[in-house]
Structures are given as C-alpha cells and as structure tokens.
C-alpha cells in the first residue's frame, strides 16, 4: 500500500506582504492546510526562476510565488519586475510541458491573512486533484540509480 498523496507546496514569498499576511493568518488563528513550506525573501524581486525550478525538482508538487500587490511593493518596484519575469518564466515552463497549475502566482498583502489561508487551502485542494508532480520527480529518480549504460 502506498501512502495517500499529501501535496508538497513550496511558497516563495516576500517578507513585507505575503509573509506578513501569512503571519496575520496565524495571529488571526485561521486554519489552513499544512502542506505549504514558506521560503522568506526580502522582495518578490529576489525570487529567481531558479528557485522555482529547484523546488519542482526537489519534489514540490506545486510552487507558489507571492508578494505585494502592484503599487504596494516595499521596494517600490520589485514586484513589477517580478511580474514580468513570472510572465515569461511561466510561459517557458508551460511550453516545456509543466502544467500551468503547478506554478501559482498571487498578490497577498500584509492585511490579507484570510486570503492567504484560503489560497493555501485552494492550492492544496487543487494539487490533491492534480496528483503528484511526477515528471521531474521521476527524472530525479533516474539520476539516483546507476548508470543506464
């Protein structure tokens, strides 16, 4: 019997908005699915596509990227830059066969604890439906075995 599938969600968030929003969800004692692991960064501008790629390789079933709403970036414009990168990177991953549902983007402000909680629940649920992200995981398994030649 294999274990029931528990989605693994890795979230890269900026410390000023979404991280604070997640904190607010906590201080408000909102309950949400425990499947998310948060990596705190100063700004969405610091979130490199490499992080997303590595997280997917490391077994994330869905990656969430979240930061301040447009206009609200603590660093003025980090999120605008991030948004462009995401647009491009998302298209790239989609073109190379990674379902768009595997990478989610959102704006969550420091005041949106409830939005954060709801979103995590929604993403967890959706990932549960999608099932594990096997494509990279299987390639990772291949690496770990001996040479095929």
């Amino acid at each position, binding site marked *: 019997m294999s274990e029931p599938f528990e989605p693994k969600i890795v979230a890269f968030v900026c410390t000023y908005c979404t991280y604070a929003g997640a904190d607010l969800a906590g201080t408000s004692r909102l309950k949400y699915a425990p499947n998310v692991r948060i990596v705190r960064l100063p700004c969405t501008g610091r979130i490199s596509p490499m992080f997303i790629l590595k997280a997917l390789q490391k077994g994330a079933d869905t990656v969430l990227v979240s930061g301040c709403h447009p206009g609200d970036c603590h660093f003025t414009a980090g999120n605008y830059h991030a948004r462009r990168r995401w647009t491009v990177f998302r298209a790239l991953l989609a073109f190379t066969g990674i379902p768009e549902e595997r990478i989610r983007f959102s704006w969550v402000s420091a005041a949106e604890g409830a939005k954060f909680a709801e979103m995590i629940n929604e993403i967890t649920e959706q990932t549960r439906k999608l099932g594990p992200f096997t494509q990279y995981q299987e390639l990772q398994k291949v690496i770990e075995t001996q040479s*095929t*030649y």
Partner: protein
Amino acid sequence: MTRILLRNKLDDCIAAWQKAGFSVFAPVRQHEMSSFGEVQKASDMAFDLVLPERTIKDHFFPQTEPLIKYKIGKQQIDSETMTPPDRKRVFFGVRPCDASGLAIDDPLFGWDYKDDYWFRRRDNSVIVTIVCTEADDFCMCTSVKLSPESDKGADVMLRPLANGAGWQVEAVSERGTALLETIPSLLQENSEPTAPVPQVAEKFDLEKVMEWLASKENFESQFWKDISLRCVGCGSCTFLCPTCHCFDIQDEGDTYAGIRRKNWDSCSFSLFTMHTSGHNPRNTQSTRWRQRIMHKFNYYRGKFGVNSCSGCGRCTRQCPVDMGITETLQAISNLPR
C-alpha cells in the same frame, strides 16, 4: 570459403544473442538523432548511415556516470560506490573508426590505475563492426593510417556482400569467436563477393604533421592563433569524438544525499584548466585548440604509442563553424618546410 550472415537472419540472430544473455545495440535513429541504442529486431536498426552522429563511446564512457552515492548523516557520511551494470552487450554495426576509438582509449583507462568503469563495460561487450561501403566528405580514417576495413577494436568484423543480402562474417578476437558460437546455425558457408570498400583519400601527410608538431619551436607558432580564430570554444567536437576522454568529477545532491558523478569535460572549455588561484595555463582558445591537436597527435602517442584519432571526421562534420582536425592537420602538412 567464408561464412556469411544473411540480412533476413538478423532477427533470429538478435534473438539468439538475447537468449545467450546479451543486450543488442546497433545504430538507431531516434528523436532526430542517430546513435547506438538497444534494438529488439533488425528493423530497429539504421543501416543507411555512413556513421551515426553519436559515437559508441557513449556506451563505455557515458556523458555522466555516477561514481559514489553518499548520505550525509549527523555523525558520519555513508558512501556507497556505484558500478556500471554488469550486462553483456553486443554492439552490432559499429564502424571501424568507432571501434578503433575504443581500442585507442584502452591503454589510457588501463595504465597504472585501471578505470573499472571503462573496463567492466569493455570486458562485457562484443564489438561487431561492419566494414564501410560508403564514405562522406569528412571521413578521414586513411589519413590517420586506419582504414574503412580496419579491424582495430573489433571482435567480429562483417563485410557487406555486394548483393546487399548480408555480410561476410569473421571473428577477429576470442570474444568474437565466442559470440559467433552462439549463432552457428545462422551462419552459412558461402563465397559471395563482398561490396567494394570506398576509397578514402588521405587528406594530409600524417608523418609530416607529427614531425611538425614534435618540433618545439612550432609550439608558439602564429599558426595556432590563425587557425583557431573562428573556434567558438564549444565542446561538440570533443563530445562527439570517439577517443576524447576528458572528464570532470562533480558532487550533485541536496542536503541529505547526493551522488559524485564523472561527467564529460572538454579541453575546449575555458574553465577546463583554470586554477582556483585564477591562473589559467590555457587561457585563450588558440592554446586550447593547440592542446587538443597536440594531445591527439603528439602527447598521446608519446605516452601510448598511438594517435588519439580514429579518423571518423565527426569533429568537422558537426562543427558549428566548420573547423575540425582535418582542416588543421591539412594546413600543417601544407605549411612550407
């Protein structure tokens, strides 16, 4: 009288070898590329190739090879040596130049410290070559004193029959003899004529080249700078070369575990010889190209008595800027003495 293997017996032949415990590899076309791949039946094979784009080297010295698996624990790091699979393989339809490539690299992997990863595969593999009936503009085996019918590195050599129905079969090593013993009923006595071997013109005077390379004053010659101007420093010539054997060792993994791997590396890459101090003995493309030529036609011979080139011509065939060994050696042999 010689023995022949008919083309229509090839499926049986593969089956017999598989029954004898061999996996059978042959040139295949997959995903817009030709290479050696495992086959189940004759129709999987691509016979119409002058030469597959990828060499047989891939199967003896893979592009990335796991060496050691490690687990990082609190108190200790557990490591486990990984070895290549112990499987018996027949490589069918290898061109003489590719087979020669294996033979050329044997002494390197064997001298002093024996590279188990290479020899475990070599010892378990039988190389069945097919003598060439075609050559293209880039073929240059004769220039390096090999030929389209060289049996170097081969265990069994096949000569295509003129009528195209099959091959004349000849064992050229004990391993080859043993392989043929698994298919006695599929071979027939015959004296059909074989197809003519193509005439591959010698493109340069190897003796002259070697002499020029051996001469110390030529090491700093302007020639190297001029000839390598357009080299962009990629590794495609080295990675597609049947004899190039340089590699890197890298650890790859996460916090808890990983694998130490042996990966192809190339003397064309600018970081290949970069010291940690920042000093780089070969810091220009011309010195790197010189190294490649010198290594193949001077150093290697000095060490192992043989040039490290089997004349397959892939370096030129695949070069994005139309360089390659042929052009350089031609230019050297044309230099005024």
